[in-house]
């Protein structure tokens, strides 16, 4: 890819990351491309798996959605051939699991689990994660409140008001 095209692609990604609902036409204006080129470029990014999807960032408190989330520290005895991949992939397949990350430090995997009640989450961890052969130990942290997710602050700070006219 030419350097210039790569720049435009990055620019498209930045725009979408901020607002995925913006029209191709407006993106085209902002990056100086034709609308068709933008369309093409985005579908390529989707095909290559660079864009994995488009989601709204929802504040569950405001939406009145009562879910429970917990971060689970998981200590794993790594396997000879597969390292952590096998067990991580296995955990990833559960729909209750929202993210799985390999981390440095005392524990190996950091797993985000979501359920309807604390009980449900606790059972899930005990039955589906702790019980795995390679898992040596887990610690569960229930999330109490979220201040910022995916780069978005939930309770936006109050912004000072500018004058309508300044020369």
């Amino acid at each position, binding site marked *: 890819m030419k350097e210039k095209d790569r720049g435009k692609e990055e620019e498209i990604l930045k725009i979408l990351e901020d607002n995925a609902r913006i029209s191709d036409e407006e993106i085209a204006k902002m990056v100086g491309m034709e609308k068709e080129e933008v369309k093409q470029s985005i579908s390529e990014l989707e095909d290559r798996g660079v864009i994995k999807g488009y989601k709204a960032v929802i504040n569950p408190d405001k939406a009145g959605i009562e879910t429970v989330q917990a971060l689970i520290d998981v200590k794993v005895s790594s396997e000879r051939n597969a390292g952590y991949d096998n067990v991580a992939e296995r955990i990833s397949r559960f729909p209750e699991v929202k993210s799985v990350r390999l981390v440095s430090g005392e524990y190996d995997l950091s797993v985000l689990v979501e359920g309807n009640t604390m009980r449900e989450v606790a059972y899930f961890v005990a039955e589906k994660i702790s019980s795995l052969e390679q898992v040596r130990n887990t610690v569960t942290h229930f999330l109490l409140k979220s201040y910022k997710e995916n780069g978005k602050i939930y309770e936006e700070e109050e912004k000072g008001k500018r004058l*309508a006219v*300044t*020369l």
Partner: protein
Amino acid sequence: MKSEIIADRVKGLEGSGIRKFFDVAQQMEGAISLGVGEPDFVTPWSIREACIFSLEKGYTSYTSNWGLLELREALSDRVYKESGVYYEPEGEILITTGVSEAFDLALRAIVNPGDEIVLHEPSYVSYKPCTVFAAGTPVCVDTEIEDEFKLRAEKLKEKITEHTKAVILSYPNNPTGATLSRKDLEEIADVVNEHDLLVISDEVYGKLTYEGKHTCFSSLNGMKERTILLNGFSKAYAMTGWRLGYAAGNKEIIEAMMKIHQYIMLCAPITAQMAAMEALRTNDEMERMVSEYNRRRRLMVEGLREIGLSCFEPKGAFYTFPSIENTGLTSEEFAKRLLLEERVVVIPGSVFGACGEGFIRCAYAVSQYQIREALERMEKFLERLRI
């Protein structure tokens, strides 16, 4: 009481007619304002946080009249890295309360009554009055859309007399968004040399250059000695309310400016100076804001063209300056009616000099959402005008 209370210089100042319109604009509920000359971003958090920390540590005193040495050192480094001109932190840099103060000091330091100061129009509204306050005579050069609103060396030359003391250069330009290339600047530098002039270069929008790179005027051959470079934190770092800027130039001039500054201002606020040091530590947030302005710039320019206004392509600052000539309205009528009928605030071009007539200034330092909404309202207004 004396019958003549107010000094002639002040009384003679024009511009009150438009003030009523601005008052209405300030009050109008539900208006979208493209009339704002400052960033819509709040100062980046790391800068605000550094300021709060400085207060907690008790930095609440005066500083050296020159400004904190550490800040002058950081500025000296920054200017050197970015434009290759070296200013000594001690003696060649003065920290001021905004470019506004620095500009006033510059004029007062160099102008004798009757000296002529050449300035190009359309441009920032303060230049002419400040020149008058400093007992100088402003001499205006019109710049034209056909010339991309550039100050051309030949046109500058025509205005030079034996009384000319200095030229004000203001690029990237408020209100047009015009920039000058290195070559354009070199041609001006030749005239400056030939006629033994000084230059006051207001580069407050320098960081907000979207095509090509901003050239600092004093970096041109031989120009450091002749130039008073003015810059600040207001626009690039979204710090308008902090009131912080600086002047850099040769020792003799900066020393003279410092003499005035120490009596009228003492020093720039220490809180703002502490924050500015943090601002200079990294450029990441600033660059993020600049790329966002650039997106909005394109959205705005394309949008204005689509609704039928011909629009010069601005390459810097955060203003567009579309022509409204084909509507048959004056720029003031246009702005007034647009405000009353569609509640969009724009600034009549005539505010920035007589040659700004026929244009309006629309700032794109507003969200993409507001740009869209404002353009829709303007389209409705224009459609009504055409019927």
